[in-house]
Protein backbone atom coordinates (compact mmCIF):
# COMPACT_ATOMS: atom_id res chain seq x y z
CA UNK A 1 0.00 0.00 0.00
CA UNK A 2 1.41 3.33 -0.97
CA UNK A 3 0.83 6.53 0.91
CA UNK A 4 -1.69 7.74 -1.59
CA UNK A 5 -3.90 4.72 -1.28
CA UNK A 6 -4.57 5.54 2.33
CA UNK A 7 -5.72 8.99 1.22
CA UNK A 8 -8.57 8.21 -1.13
CA UNK A 9 -9.62 11.85 -1.25
CA UNK A 10 -6.26 12.93 -2.60
CA UNK A 11 -6.43 12.26 -6.29
CA UNK A 12 -2.75 12.62 -6.99
CA UNK A 13 -2.35 9.47 -9.05
CA UNK A 14 -5.13 10.37 -11.48
CA UNK A 15 -3.65 13.82 -11.75
CA UNK A 16 -0.34 12.40 -12.90
CA UNK A 17 -2.28 10.43 -15.50
CA UNK A 18 -4.27 13.50 -16.57
CA UNK A 19 -1.02 15.39 -16.91
CA UNK A 20 0.48 12.56 -18.96
CA UNK A 21 -2.51 12.57 -21.29
CA UNK A 22 -2.37 16.33 -21.76
CA UNK A 23 1.37 16.27 -22.31
CA UNK A 24 1.22 13.54 -24.92
CA UNK A 25 -1.67 15.25 -26.66
CA UNK A 26 0.58 18.24 -27.26
CA UNK A 27 2.83 16.08 -29.43
CA UNK A 28 0.04 14.71 -31.55
CA UNK A 29 0.01 17.72 -33.81
CA UNK A 30 3.55 19.02 -33.43
CA UNK A 31 3.19 21.68 -36.09
CA UNK A 32 0.19 23.28 -34.47
CA UNK A 33 1.75 23.11 -31.03
CA UNK A 34 4.92 24.73 -32.30
CA UNK A 35 2.93 27.52 -33.93
CA UNK A 36 0.92 28.05 -30.76
CA UNK A 37 3.97 28.11 -28.50
CA UNK A 38 5.91 30.37 -30.87
CA UNK A 39 3.11 32.87 -31.06
CA UNK A 40 3.11 33.05 -27.27
CA UNK A 41 6.89 33.38 -27.19
CA UNK A 42 6.71 36.21 -29.71
CA UNK A 43 3.97 37.98 -27.81
CA UNK A 44 5.86 37.78 -24.52
CA UNK A 45 9.11 39.04 -26.01
CA UNK A 46 7.39 41.84 -27.87
CA UNK A 47 5.19 42.98 -24.99
CA UNK A 48 7.90 42.77 -22.36
CA UNK A 49 10.50 44.54 -24.47
CA UNK A 50 8.14 47.28 -25.57
CA UNK A 51 6.86 47.96 -22.07
CA UNK A 52 10.34 47.81 -20.54
CA UNK A 53 11.45 50.41 -23.03
CA UNK A 54 8.46 52.64 -22.35
CA UNK A 55 8.63 52.37 -18.59
CA UNK A 56 12.38 52.75 -18.77
CA UNK A 57 11.86 56.00 -20.66
CA UNK A 58 9.35 57.33 -18.14
CA UNK A 59 11.46 56.15 -15.24
CA UNK A 60 14.51 57.82 -16.68
CA UNK A 61 12.55 60.98 -17.25
CA UNK A 62 11.40 61.00 -13.66
CA UNK A 63 14.91 60.38 -12.47
CA UNK A 64 16.02 63.25 -14.63
CA UNK A 65 13.34 65.46 -13.19
CA UNK A 66 14.35 64.86 -9.59
CA UNK A 67 17.81 65.96 -10.38
CA UNK A 68 16.68 68.57 -12.88
CA UNK A 69 16.41 72.25 -12.60
CA UNK A 70 12.65 71.93 -12.21
CA UNK A 71 12.44 69.47 -9.35
CA UNK A 72 9.27 67.52 -8.55
CA UNK A 73 7.31 70.34 -6.95
CA UNK A 74 7.59 74.12 -6.97
CA UNK A 75 5.81 76.82 -5.02
CA UNK A 76 5.19 80.23 -6.59
CA UNK A 77 3.06 83.23 -6.07
CA UNK A 78 -0.38 82.37 -7.44
CA UNK A 79 -0.30 83.03 -11.21
CA UNK A 80 3.48 83.09 -11.68
CA UNK A 81 3.62 80.06 -13.94
CA UNK A 82 1.25 81.60 -16.47
CA UNK A 83 2.59 85.14 -16.10
CA UNK A 84 6.25 85.09 -15.25
CA UNK A 85 6.76 88.59 -13.98
CA UNK A 86 8.73 89.62 -10.95
CA UNK A 87 5.61 91.18 -9.48
CA UNK A 88 4.37 87.63 -9.00
CA UNK A 89 6.83 86.99 -6.21
CA UNK A 90 6.60 86.14 -2.54
CA UNK A 91 8.64 86.16 0.63
CA UNK A 92 10.40 82.91 1.65
CA UNK A 93 9.20 83.49 5.20
CA UNK A 94 5.66 82.71 4.02
CA UNK A 95 6.51 79.07 3.52
CA UNK A 96 9.36 78.11 5.84
CA UNK A 97 6.87 76.13 7.93
CA UNK A 98 6.73 73.63 5.04
CA UNK A 99 10.07 72.31 6.30
CA UNK A 100 8.06 70.62 9.06
CA UNK A 101 6.66 68.24 6.46
CA UNK A 102 8.41 64.92 6.83
CA UNK A 103 9.12 64.50 3.12
CA UNK A 104 10.55 67.98 2.59
CA UNK A 105 14.26 68.15 3.25
CA UNK A 106 14.97 71.69 2.15
CA UNK A 107 13.58 74.63 0.18
CA UNK A 108 15.64 76.12 -2.57
CA UNK A 109 14.70 79.68 -3.53
CA UNK A 110 15.11 81.37 -6.89
CA UNK A 111 14.44 84.49 -8.78
CA UNK A 112 13.71 83.74 -12.41
CA UNK A 113 13.85 86.91 -14.39
CA UNK A 114 14.83 88.27 -17.78
CA UNK A 115 17.32 90.91 -18.77
CA UNK A 116 19.07 92.36 -21.73
CA UNK A 117 22.77 91.44 -21.60
CA UNK A 118 25.23 93.83 -23.30
CA UNK A 119 28.92 93.67 -23.99
CA UNK A 120 30.41 96.35 -26.22
CA UNK A 121 27.81 96.83 -28.97
CA UNK A 122 26.47 93.33 -28.65
CA UNK A 123 23.11 92.74 -26.87
CA UNK A 124 21.11 89.60 -26.20
CA UNK A 125 18.00 88.84 -24.14
CA UNK A 126 18.83 86.29 -21.47
CA UNK A 127 17.20 84.40 -18.63
CA UNK A 128 18.74 85.78 -15.49
CA UNK A 129 18.54 83.23 -12.72
CA UNK A 130 19.21 84.04 -9.11
CA UNK A 131 19.88 80.78 -7.32
CA UNK A 132 20.79 79.61 -3.88
CA UNK A 133 24.19 78.63 -5.24
CA UNK A 134 25.16 76.41 -2.33
CA UNK A 135 21.89 74.47 -2.40
CA UNK A 136 21.89 74.07 -6.20
CA UNK A 137 25.45 72.93 -6.19
CA UNK A 138 24.43 69.98 -4.05
CA UNK A 139 21.13 69.37 -5.81
CA UNK A 140 22.04 69.86 -9.44
CA UNK A 141 25.78 69.39 -9.26
CA UNK A 142 26.01 72.74 -11.01
CA UNK A 143 29.66 73.10 -10.06
CA UNK A 144 30.50 70.06 -12.18
CA UNK A 145 28.94 71.69 -15.21
CA UNK A 146 31.35 74.59 -15.13
CA UNK A 147 33.70 74.01 -18.06
CA UNK A 148 35.82 77.08 -17.72
CA UNK A 149 36.51 79.29 -14.71
CA UNK A 150 35.04 78.33 -11.36
CA UNK A 151 31.79 77.92 -9.48
CA UNK A 152 30.73 80.15 -6.59
CA UNK A 153 32.95 78.33 -4.15
CA UNK A 154 34.65 81.09 -2.28
CA UNK A 155 32.60 83.99 -3.51
CA UNK A 156 28.98 84.87 -4.06
CA UNK A 157 29.46 87.61 -6.58
CA UNK A 158 29.89 87.49 -10.32
CA UNK A 159 28.02 85.41 -12.88
CA UNK A 160 28.13 82.07 -14.67
CA UNK A 161 27.31 82.23 -18.38
CA UNK A 162 26.11 79.47 -20.68
CA UNK A 163 28.68 78.39 -23.25
CA UNK A 164 26.28 79.12 -26.10
CA UNK A 165 25.99 82.73 -25.05
CA UNK A 166 29.75 82.86 -24.66
CA UNK A 167 30.21 81.88 -28.29
CA UNK A 168 27.54 84.21 -29.63
CA UNK A 169 28.81 87.24 -27.75
CA UNK A 170 32.51 86.27 -27.89
CA UNK A 171 32.87 86.45 -24.13
CA UNK A 172 35.94 85.66 -22.06
CA UNK A 173 36.52 84.98 -18.40
CA UNK A 174 36.74 88.17 -16.38
CA UNK A 175 34.68 90.21 -18.88
CA UNK A 176 31.90 92.24 -17.34
CA UNK A 177 28.40 92.19 -18.74
CA UNK A 178 25.89 94.96 -18.32
CA UNK A 179 22.33 93.93 -17.62
CA UNK A 180 19.28 96.01 -18.13
CA UNK A 181 15.83 95.03 -17.01
CA UNK A 182 12.64 96.05 -15.44
CA UNK A 183 12.87 95.38 -11.70
CA UNK A 184 10.28 94.76 -9.03
CA UNK A 185 7.13 96.91 -9.25
CA UNK A 186 8.23 98.75 -12.36
CA UNK A 187 11.60 99.92 -11.09
CA UNK A 188 14.54 100.19 -13.41
CA UNK A 189 17.22 97.54 -12.94
CA UNK A 190 20.77 97.79 -14.19
CA UNK A 191 24.14 96.50 -13.18
CA UNK A 192 27.47 95.20 -14.35
CA UNK A 193 28.80 91.81 -13.28
CA UNK A 194 32.05 90.00 -14.00
CA UNK A 195 32.05 86.51 -15.55
CA UNK A 196 33.57 83.98 -13.16
CA UNK A 197 32.85 80.88 -15.25
CA UNK A 198 31.19 79.31 -18.24
CA UNK A 199 28.70 76.57 -17.75
CA UNK A 200 27.54 73.73 -20.01
CA UNK A 201 23.90 72.92 -19.31
CA UNK A 202 23.98 70.09 -21.87
CA UNK A 203 21.38 71.53 -24.18
CA UNK A 204 22.03 74.22 -26.77
CA UNK A 205 18.73 75.90 -25.98
CA UNK A 206 19.69 76.53 -22.36
CA UNK A 207 23.32 77.28 -23.10
CA UNK A 208 22.35 80.11 -25.43
CA UNK A 209 20.32 82.10 -22.95
CA UNK A 210 21.23 81.31 -19.38
CA UNK A 211 23.01 83.51 -16.89
CA UNK A 212 23.29 82.42 -13.27
CA UNK A 213 24.05 84.54 -10.24
CA UNK A 214 23.63 84.18 -6.50
CA UNK A 215 20.13 84.80 -5.17
CA UNK A 216 21.18 87.72 -2.94
CA UNK A 217 22.81 89.47 -5.88
CA UNK A 218 19.71 88.95 -8.00
CA UNK A 219 17.49 90.35 -5.25
CA UNK A 220 19.68 93.42 -5.20
CA UNK A 221 19.69 93.74 -9.01
CA UNK A 222 15.93 93.45 -9.33
CA UNK A 223 15.40 95.59 -6.22
CA UNK A 224 13.35 92.98 -4.45
CA UNK A 225 15.09 92.22 -1.14
CA UNK A 226 13.68 89.15 0.63
CA UNK A 227 11.49 88.26 -2.31
CA UNK A 228 11.70 85.24 -4.59
CA UNK A 229 9.69 83.94 -7.54
CA UNK A 230 10.22 80.27 -7.01
CA UNK A 231 10.79 77.73 -4.26
CA UNK A 232 11.84 74.21 -5.26
CA UNK A 233 10.86 71.60 -2.69
CA UNK A 234 13.66 69.18 -1.94
CA UNK A 235 11.89 65.84 -1.45
CA UNK A 236 13.35 63.03 0.59
CA UNK A 237 11.55 60.33 -1.33
CA UNK A 238 9.86 60.12 -4.75
CA UNK A 239 6.35 60.26 -3.39
CA UNK A 240 5.63 63.61 -5.00
CA UNK A 241 1.93 63.09 -5.66
CA UNK A 242 1.02 62.71 -2.01
CA UNK A 243 3.43 65.41 -0.91
CA UNK A 244 1.95 67.87 -3.38
CA UNK A 245 -1.55 67.26 -2.02
CA UNK A 246 -0.36 67.76 1.54
CA UNK A 247 1.47 70.96 0.66
CA UNK A 248 -1.61 72.29 -1.10
CA UNK A 249 -3.60 71.59 2.05
CA UNK A 250 -1.15 73.60 4.15
CA UNK A 251 -0.61 76.74 2.09
CA UNK A 252 -2.96 79.59 1.34
CA UNK A 253 -3.83 78.79 -2.24
CA UNK A 254 -5.21 82.26 -2.83
CA UNK A 255 -1.70 83.51 -2.43
CA UNK A 256 0.46 80.65 -3.59
CA UNK A 257 0.42 77.98 -6.28
CA UNK A 258 1.89 74.51 -5.79
CA UNK A 259 2.76 72.84 -9.09
CA UNK A 260 4.23 69.47 -9.85
CA UNK A 261 6.55 68.63 -12.75
CA UNK A 262 3.61 67.32 -14.73
CA UNK A 263 1.80 70.59 -14.48
CA UNK A 264 4.90 72.59 -15.27
CA UNK A 265 5.75 70.45 -18.30
CA UNK A 266 2.38 69.83 -19.93
CA UNK A 267 4.13 69.20 -23.21
CA UNK A 268 6.20 66.39 -21.76
CA UNK A 269 3.24 64.99 -19.94
CA UNK A 270 1.21 65.00 -23.13
CA UNK A 271 4.00 63.25 -24.91
CA UNK A 272 4.09 60.57 -22.23
CA UNK A 273 0.32 60.23 -22.31
CA UNK A 274 0.30 59.88 -26.11
CA UNK A 275 3.16 57.44 -25.93
CA UNK A 276 1.46 55.38 -23.23
CA UNK A 277 -1.81 55.32 -25.15
CA UNK A 278 0.05 54.31 -28.29
CA UNK A 279 1.74 51.55 -26.34
CA UNK A 280 -1.56 50.34 -24.97
CA UNK A 281 -3.07 50.38 -28.43
CA UNK A 282 -0.24 48.28 -29.83
CA UNK A 283 -0.59 45.91 -26.90
CA UNK A 284 -4.32 45.73 -27.45
CA UNK A 285 -3.77 44.73 -31.08
CA UNK A 286 -1.10 42.25 -30.07
CA UNK A 287 -3.26 40.63 -27.43
CA UNK A 288 -6.27 40.58 -29.74
CA UNK A 289 -4.24 38.65 -32.29
CA UNK A 290 -2.98 36.30 -29.60
CA UNK A 291 -6.47 35.81 -28.24
CA UNK A 292 -7.86 34.94 -31.67
CA UNK A 293 -5.02 32.60 -32.50
CA UNK A 294 -5.30 30.85 -29.14
CA UNK A 295 -9.04 30.68 -29.51
CA UNK A 296 -8.54 29.13 -32.94
CA UNK A 297 -6.27 26.52 -31.44
CA UNK A 298 -8.71 25.79 -28.65
CA UNK A 299 -11.56 25.55 -31.13
CA UNK A 300 -9.70 23.09 -33.34
CA UNK A 301 -8.50 21.06 -30.38
CA UNK A 302 -11.94 20.78 -28.89
CA UNK A 303 -13.51 19.75 -32.20
CA UNK A 304 -10.78 17.24 -32.94
CA UNK A 305 -10.82 15.71 -29.51
CA UNK A 306 -14.55 15.63 -28.90
CA UNK A 307 -14.83 12.03 -30.13
CA UNK A 308 -12.21 11.02 -27.57
CA UNK A 309 -13.79 13.09 -24.84
CA UNK A 310 -17.02 11.25 -25.65
CA UNK A 311 -15.28 7.89 -25.24
CA UNK A 312 -13.67 8.95 -21.96
CA UNK A 313 -16.98 10.10 -20.53
CA UNK A 314 -18.73 6.98 -21.81
CA UNK A 315 -16.33 4.64 -20.04
CA UNK A 316 -16.75 6.56 -16.79
CA UNK A 317 -14.34 9.48 -16.63
CA UNK A 318 -15.84 12.39 -14.69
CA UNK A 319 -16.36 15.44 -16.86
CA UNK A 320 -14.23 17.58 -14.55
CA UNK A 321 -11.28 15.31 -15.17
CA UNK A 322 -11.82 15.42 -18.90
CA UNK A 323 -11.89 19.21 -18.62
CA UNK A 324 -8.58 19.17 -16.77
CA UNK A 325 -6.96 17.11 -19.53
CA UNK A 326 -8.40 19.37 -22.19
CA UNK A 327 -7.35 22.69 -20.69
CA UNK A 328 -4.03 21.41 -19.38
CA UNK A 329 -2.99 20.90 -22.97
CA UNK A 330 -3.18 24.60 -23.81
CA UNK A 331 -2.07 25.66 -20.36
CA UNK A 332 1.10 23.60 -20.69
CA UNK A 333 1.75 25.14 -24.09
CA UNK A 334 1.15 28.59 -22.64
CA UNK A 335 3.53 27.98 -19.74
CA UNK A 336 6.19 26.72 -22.12
CA UNK A 337 5.72 29.75 -24.35
CA UNK A 338 5.71 32.18 -21.45
CA UNK A 339 8.86 30.76 -19.87
CA UNK A 340 10.69 30.60 -23.19
CA UNK A 341 9.49 34.11 -24.06
CA UNK A 342 10.73 35.49 -20.75
CA UNK A 343 14.02 33.65 -21.20
CA UNK A 344 14.51 35.28 -24.60
CA UNK A 345 13.25 38.70 -23.51
CA UNK A 346 15.46 38.98 -20.44
CA UNK A 347 18.85 39.26 -22.18
CA UNK A 348 17.42 41.73 -24.71
CA UNK A 349 15.96 43.93 -21.99
CA UNK A 350 19.15 43.63 -19.95
CA UNK A 351 21.28 44.59 -22.95
CA UNK A 352 19.35 47.78 -23.59
CA UNK A 353 19.44 48.56 -19.89
CA UNK A 354 23.23 48.49 -19.98
CA UNK A 355 23.51 50.09 -23.43
CA UNK A 356 20.55 52.49 -23.50
CA UNK A 357 18.83 53.44 -26.71
CA UNK A 358 19.39 57.00 -27.95
CA UNK A 359 16.21 58.94 -28.46
CA UNK A 360 15.64 60.69 -31.73
CA UNK A 361 13.17 63.02 -33.38
CA UNK A 362 10.47 64.91 -31.57
CA UNK A 363 10.97 63.08 -28.31
CA UNK A 364 14.64 63.95 -28.29
CA UNK A 365 13.93 67.63 -28.92
CA UNK A 366 11.38 67.93 -26.15
CA UNK A 367 13.43 65.98 -23.69
CA UNK A 368 16.57 67.95 -24.37
CA UNK A 369 14.72 71.22 -24.19
CA UNK A 370 14.10 70.54 -20.54
CA UNK A 371 17.66 69.62 -19.92
CA UNK A 372 17.25 65.85 -19.77
CA UNK A 373 19.47 63.27 -21.36
CA UNK A 374 17.91 61.77 -24.49
CA UNK A 375 18.87 58.22 -23.49
CA UNK A 376 16.49 55.48 -22.52
CA UNK A 377 17.70 52.51 -20.61
CA UNK A 378 15.07 49.74 -20.51
CA UNK A 379 13.35 49.17 -17.20
CA UNK A 380 14.33 46.00 -15.36
CA UNK A 381 11.22 46.10 -13.21
CA UNK A 382 10.17 42.43 -12.93
CA UNK A 383 6.53 43.43 -12.61
CA UNK A 384 6.50 44.21 -16.35
CA UNK A 385 7.46 40.64 -17.25
CA UNK A 386 5.15 39.20 -14.62
CA UNK A 387 2.16 41.25 -15.68
CA UNK A 388 2.48 40.24 -19.32
CA UNK A 389 3.04 36.61 -18.42
CA UNK A 390 -0.08 36.96 -16.30
CA UNK A 391 -2.10 38.55 -19.11
CA UNK A 392 -1.26 35.74 -21.52
CA UNK A 393 -2.04 33.14 -18.91
CA UNK A 394 -5.34 34.86 -18.26
CA UNK A 395 -6.16 34.89 -21.99
CA UNK A 396 -5.46 31.16 -22.13
CA UNK A 397 -7.81 30.58 -19.23
CA UNK A 398 -10.49 32.71 -20.85
CA UNK A 399 -10.34 31.01 -24.25
CA UNK A 400 -10.50 27.69 -22.45
CA UNK A 401 -13.93 28.62 -21.18
CA UNK A 402 -15.10 27.42 -24.58
CA UNK A 403 -13.64 23.97 -23.94
CA UNK A 404 -15.13 23.85 -20.47
CA UNK A 405 -18.61 24.71 -21.71
CA UNK A 406 -18.30 22.26 -24.62
CA UNK A 407 -17.31 19.39 -22.36
CA UNK A 408 -19.94 20.23 -19.78
CA UNK A 409 -22.55 19.94 -22.51
CA UNK A 410 -21.02 16.98 -24.28
CA UNK A 411 -23.23 13.92 -24.72
CA UNK A 412 -21.05 10.87 -25.25
CA UNK A 413 -23.23 9.06 -27.77
CA UNK A 414 -23.49 12.15 -29.93
CA UNK A 415 -19.78 12.82 -29.67
CA UNK A 416 -18.96 9.22 -30.59
CA UNK A 417 -21.16 9.27 -33.68
CA UNK A 418 -18.75 10.00 -36.50
Amino acid sequence: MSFWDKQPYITFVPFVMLFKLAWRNIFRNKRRSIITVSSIIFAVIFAVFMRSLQYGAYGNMLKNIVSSYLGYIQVHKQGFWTEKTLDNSFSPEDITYLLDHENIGYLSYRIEGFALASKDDNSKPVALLGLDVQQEKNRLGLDKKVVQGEYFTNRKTGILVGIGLRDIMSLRLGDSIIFLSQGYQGSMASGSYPIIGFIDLKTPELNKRTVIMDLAQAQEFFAMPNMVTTAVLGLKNDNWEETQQEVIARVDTNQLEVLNWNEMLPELQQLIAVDKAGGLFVLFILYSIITFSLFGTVLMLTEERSFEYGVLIAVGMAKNKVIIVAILETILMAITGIIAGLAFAFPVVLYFNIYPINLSGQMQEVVEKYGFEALIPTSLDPSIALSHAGIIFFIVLVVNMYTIVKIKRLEPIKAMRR
Partner: protein
Amino acid sequence: MIKVTHVTKTYDDGKVRVEALRGINVEIKNGEFTAIVGPSGSGKTTLLNIIGGLDTPTEGNVIIGETNIAQLSENQLIDFRLNHIGFVFQSYNLIPVLTAKENVEFLMLLQNKSEAERDERTTKLLKAVGLEDQINKKPNEMSGGQQQRVAVARALASKPDFILADEPTANLDSASTANLLDIMYRLNQEENMTFVFSTHDQRVIDRAKRVITVEDGKILSDIYT
Protein backbone atom coordinates in the same frame (compact mmCIF):
# COMPACT_ATOMS: atom_id res chain seq x y z
CA MET B 1 -28.69 -8.67 -13.05
CA ILE B 2 -30.16 -6.25 -15.56
CA LYS B 3 -33.88 -5.66 -15.53
CA VAL B 4 -35.43 -3.64 -18.36
CA THR B 5 -39.12 -2.86 -17.91
CA HIS B 6 -41.50 -1.15 -20.33
CA VAL B 7 -38.72 0.80 -21.95
CA THR B 8 -39.59 3.03 -24.85
CA LYS B 9 -37.40 5.49 -26.65
CA THR B 10 -38.74 8.12 -28.97
CA TYR B 11 -36.45 10.48 -30.86
CA ASP B 12 -38.28 13.64 -31.69
CA ASP B 13 -36.43 16.58 -33.16
CA GLY B 14 -39.62 18.54 -33.79
CA LYS B 15 -39.87 17.45 -37.42
CA VAL B 16 -39.34 13.72 -37.36
CA ARG B 17 -40.53 11.33 -34.70
CA VAL B 18 -38.79 7.98 -34.50
CA GLU B 19 -39.96 5.34 -32.09
CA ALA B 20 -36.70 3.47 -31.74
CA LEU B 21 -37.91 1.27 -28.87
CA ARG B 22 -41.57 0.47 -28.24
CA GLY B 23 -41.92 -1.32 -24.95
CA ILE B 24 -38.97 -3.54 -24.18
CA ASN B 25 -39.13 -5.97 -21.26
CA VAL B 26 -36.14 -8.18 -20.68
CA GLU B 27 -34.05 -9.59 -17.87
CA ILE B 28 -30.41 -10.51 -18.20
CA LYS B 29 -28.90 -12.59 -15.42
CA ASN B 30 -25.32 -12.68 -14.27
CA GLY B 31 -23.14 -14.96 -16.32
CA GLU B 32 -25.13 -14.77 -19.50
CA PHE B 33 -23.56 -14.63 -22.95
CA THR B 34 -26.30 -12.87 -24.85
CA ALA B 35 -26.54 -11.64 -28.41
CA ILE B 36 -29.00 -8.98 -29.51
CA VAL B 37 -29.76 -9.33 -33.17
CA GLY B 38 -32.05 -7.73 -35.69
CA PRO B 39 -32.08 -5.80 -38.93
CA SER B 40 -30.48 -2.43 -39.30
CA GLY B 41 -32.48 0.28 -37.57
CA SER B 42 -34.32 -2.17 -35.36
CA GLY B 43 -33.10 -0.54 -32.15
CA LYS B 44 -30.15 -2.69 -30.99
CA THR B 45 -27.78 0.19 -30.40
CA THR B 46 -30.48 2.23 -28.72
CA LEU B 47 -31.23 -0.63 -26.34
CA LEU B 48 -27.56 -1.18 -25.46
CA ASN B 49 -27.04 2.55 -24.90
CA ILE B 50 -29.97 2.67 -22.54
CA ILE B 51 -28.83 -0.41 -20.62
CA GLY B 52 -25.35 1.10 -20.42
CA GLY B 53 -26.58 4.42 -19.06
CA LEU B 54 -25.33 6.30 -22.11
CA ASP B 55 -28.86 7.23 -23.09
CA THR B 56 -32.02 7.63 -21.08
CA PRO B 57 -35.32 5.89 -21.86
CA THR B 58 -38.36 7.98 -22.72
CA GLU B 59 -40.43 5.69 -20.52
CA GLY B 60 -39.70 2.68 -18.35
CA ASN B 61 -36.94 1.66 -15.99
CA VAL B 62 -33.54 0.04 -16.19
CA ILE B 63 -32.50 -1.59 -12.95
CA ILE B 64 -28.95 -2.81 -12.60
CA GLY B 65 -28.34 -4.75 -9.41
CA GLU B 66 -30.18 -2.56 -6.95
CA THR B 67 -29.95 0.71 -8.87
CA ASN B 68 -32.57 2.24 -11.09
CA ILE B 69 -30.21 4.04 -13.43
CA ALA B 70 -33.02 6.02 -15.01
CA GLN B 71 -33.04 8.03 -11.77
CA LEU B 72 -29.37 8.91 -11.57
CA SER B 73 -28.00 12.38 -12.23
CA GLU B 74 -25.51 12.83 -15.05
CA ASN B 75 -22.47 12.71 -12.78
CA GLN B 76 -23.82 9.77 -10.79
CA LEU B 77 -24.41 7.96 -14.05
CA ILE B 78 -20.83 8.55 -15.19
CA ASP B 79 -19.60 7.20 -11.87
CA PHE B 80 -21.96 4.25 -12.16
CA ARG B 81 -20.63 3.42 -15.61
CA LEU B 82 -17.07 3.55 -14.28
CA ASN B 83 -17.71 1.08 -11.52
CA HIS B 84 -20.40 -1.22 -12.92
CA ILE B 85 -20.35 -1.35 -16.71
CA GLY B 86 -17.67 -2.34 -19.20
CA PHE B 87 -17.90 -1.04 -22.76
CA VAL B 88 -16.52 -2.47 -25.98
CA PHE B 89 -17.14 -0.33 -29.05
CA GLN B 90 -17.33 -1.24 -32.70
CA SER B 91 -14.36 0.99 -33.56
CA TYR B 92 -12.32 0.02 -30.45
CA ASN B 93 -12.05 3.64 -29.25
CA LEU B 94 -8.82 3.23 -27.34
CA ILE B 95 -7.00 6.35 -26.17
CA PRO B 96 -4.52 6.95 -29.00
CA VAL B 97 -1.74 8.48 -26.90
CA LEU B 98 -1.68 5.66 -24.36
CA THR B 99 -0.03 2.26 -24.73
CA ALA B 100 -1.97 -1.00 -24.45
CA LYS B 101 -0.95 -1.28 -20.82
CA GLU B 102 -1.90 2.31 -20.03
CA ASN B 103 -5.24 1.95 -21.79
CA VAL B 104 -6.08 -1.06 -19.63
CA GLU B 105 -4.81 0.64 -16.48
CA PHE B 106 -6.72 3.85 -17.18
CA LEU B 107 -10.05 3.07 -15.55
CA MET B 108 -8.34 1.61 -12.47
CA LEU B 109 -6.51 4.92 -12.06
CA LEU B 110 -9.85 6.69 -12.17
CA GLN B 111 -11.01 4.24 -9.49
CA ASN B 112 -7.98 5.13 -7.35
CA LYS B 113 -6.73 1.55 -7.30
CA SER B 114 -3.27 0.97 -5.85
CA GLU B 115 -0.30 0.61 -8.14
CA ALA B 116 0.22 -3.00 -7.10
CA GLU B 117 -3.36 -3.90 -7.88
CA ARG B 118 -3.23 -2.05 -11.20
CA ASP B 119 -0.05 -3.76 -12.28
CA GLU B 120 -1.25 -7.18 -11.33
CA ARG B 121 -4.61 -6.85 -13.02
CA THR B 122 -3.25 -5.21 -16.17
CA THR B 123 -0.71 -7.98 -16.64
CA LYS B 124 -3.29 -10.64 -16.01
CA LEU B 125 -5.84 -9.15 -18.41
CA LEU B 126 -3.41 -8.51 -21.23
CA LYS B 127 -2.28 -12.10 -20.86
CA ALA B 128 -5.88 -13.27 -20.91
CA VAL B 129 -6.43 -11.53 -24.25
CA GLY B 130 -3.12 -12.84 -25.55
CA LEU B 131 -1.28 -9.52 -25.78
CA GLU B 132 1.36 -9.91 -23.09
CA ASP B 133 4.04 -9.15 -25.67
CA GLN B 134 2.34 -5.98 -26.98
CA ILE B 135 1.92 -4.07 -23.73
CA ASN B 136 3.96 -1.03 -24.77
CA LYS B 137 2.40 -0.57 -28.17
CA LYS B 138 0.18 2.38 -28.97
CA PRO B 139 -3.18 1.66 -30.66
CA ASN B 140 -1.94 2.78 -34.08
CA GLU B 141 0.84 0.20 -33.87
CA MET B 142 -1.65 -2.66 -33.47
CA SER B 143 -4.08 -4.44 -35.77
CA GLY B 144 -7.82 -3.96 -35.39
CA GLY B 145 -8.14 -7.37 -33.78
CA GLN B 146 -5.40 -6.58 -31.28
CA GLN B 147 -6.94 -3.22 -30.50
CA GLN B 148 -10.31 -4.81 -29.87
CA ARG B 149 -8.71 -7.31 -27.51
CA VAL B 150 -7.11 -4.41 -25.62
CA ALA B 151 -10.58 -2.86 -25.51
CA VAL B 152 -11.96 -6.04 -23.95
CA ALA B 153 -9.17 -6.01 -21.38
CA ARG B 154 -9.90 -2.34 -20.67
CA ALA B 155 -13.62 -3.08 -20.21
CA LEU B 156 -12.80 -5.84 -17.73
CA ALA B 157 -10.22 -3.82 -15.78
CA SER B 158 -12.68 -1.87 -13.70
CA LYS B 159 -14.34 -5.13 -12.52
CA PRO B 160 -17.73 -4.27 -14.01
CA ASP B 161 -20.95 -6.18 -13.39
CA PHE B 162 -21.24 -6.88 -17.12
CA ILE B 163 -19.82 -5.94 -20.50
CA LEU B 164 -21.81 -4.30 -23.27
CA ALA B 165 -20.48 -4.59 -26.79
CA ASP B 166 -22.19 -2.94 -29.76
CA GLU B 167 -21.12 -4.90 -32.85
CA PRO B 168 -17.65 -5.64 -31.47
CA THR B 169 -16.58 -7.71 -34.47
CA ALA B 170 -18.04 -5.56 -37.26
CA ASN B 171 -14.62 -4.13 -38.13
CA LEU B 172 -12.70 -7.39 -37.74
CA ASP B 173 -11.69 -10.06 -40.24
CA SER B 174 -12.89 -13.59 -39.63
CA ALA B 175 -9.75 -14.83 -37.91
CA SER B 176 -9.76 -11.89 -35.49
CA THR B 177 -13.47 -12.35 -34.97
CA ALA B 178 -13.02 -15.99 -34.03
CA ASN B 179 -10.11 -15.11 -31.77
CA LEU B 180 -12.03 -12.35 -29.97
CA LEU B 181 -15.05 -14.58 -29.52
CA ASP B 182 -12.86 -17.30 -28.05
CA ILE B 183 -11.51 -14.86 -25.52
CA MET B 184 -14.93 -13.47 -24.61
CA TYR B 185 -16.35 -16.97 -24.37
CA ARG B 186 -13.53 -18.13 -22.14
CA LEU B 187 -13.87 -15.12 -19.85
CA ASN B 188 -17.55 -15.88 -19.64
CA GLN B 189 -16.94 -19.53 -18.81
CA GLU B 190 -14.00 -19.10 -16.45
CA GLU B 191 -14.71 -15.78 -14.75
CA ASN B 192 -18.49 -15.86 -15.08
CA MET B 193 -18.35 -12.45 -16.78
CA THR B 194 -21.67 -11.38 -18.29
CA PHE B 195 -21.53 -10.30 -21.94
CA VAL B 196 -24.31 -8.56 -23.86
CA PHE B 197 -23.48 -7.82 -27.46
CA SER B 198 -25.27 -6.83 -30.62
CA THR B 199 -24.26 -8.34 -33.94
CA HIS B 200 -25.18 -9.04 -37.54
CA ASP B 201 -22.62 -11.79 -37.88
CA GLN B 202 -24.06 -15.30 -38.06
CA ARG B 203 -20.83 -16.85 -36.72
CA VAL B 204 -21.10 -14.63 -33.65
CA ILE B 205 -24.79 -15.43 -33.23
CA ASP B 206 -23.94 -19.12 -33.35
CA ARG B 207 -21.67 -18.77 -30.31
CA ALA B 208 -24.25 -16.98 -28.14
CA LYS B 209 -26.03 -18.83 -25.37
CA ARG B 210 -29.07 -16.61 -25.69
CA VAL B 211 -30.27 -14.73 -28.74
CA ILE B 212 -32.70 -11.83 -28.39
CA THR B 213 -34.12 -10.70 -31.72
CA VAL B 214 -35.31 -7.11 -31.96
CA GLU B 215 -37.41 -5.73 -34.77
CA ASP B 216 -39.09 -2.35 -35.04
CA GLY B 217 -38.17 -1.54 -31.45
CA LYS B 218 -39.81 -4.65 -30.04
CA ILE B 219 -38.53 -8.02 -28.96
CA LEU B 220 -39.52 -10.52 -31.61
CA SER B 221 -38.02 -13.62 -30.05
CA ASP B 222 -35.85 -14.59 -27.10
CA ILE B 223 -34.18 -17.98 -27.45
CA TYR B 224 -31.77 -19.85 -25.17
CA THR B 225 -29.62 -22.18 -27.23
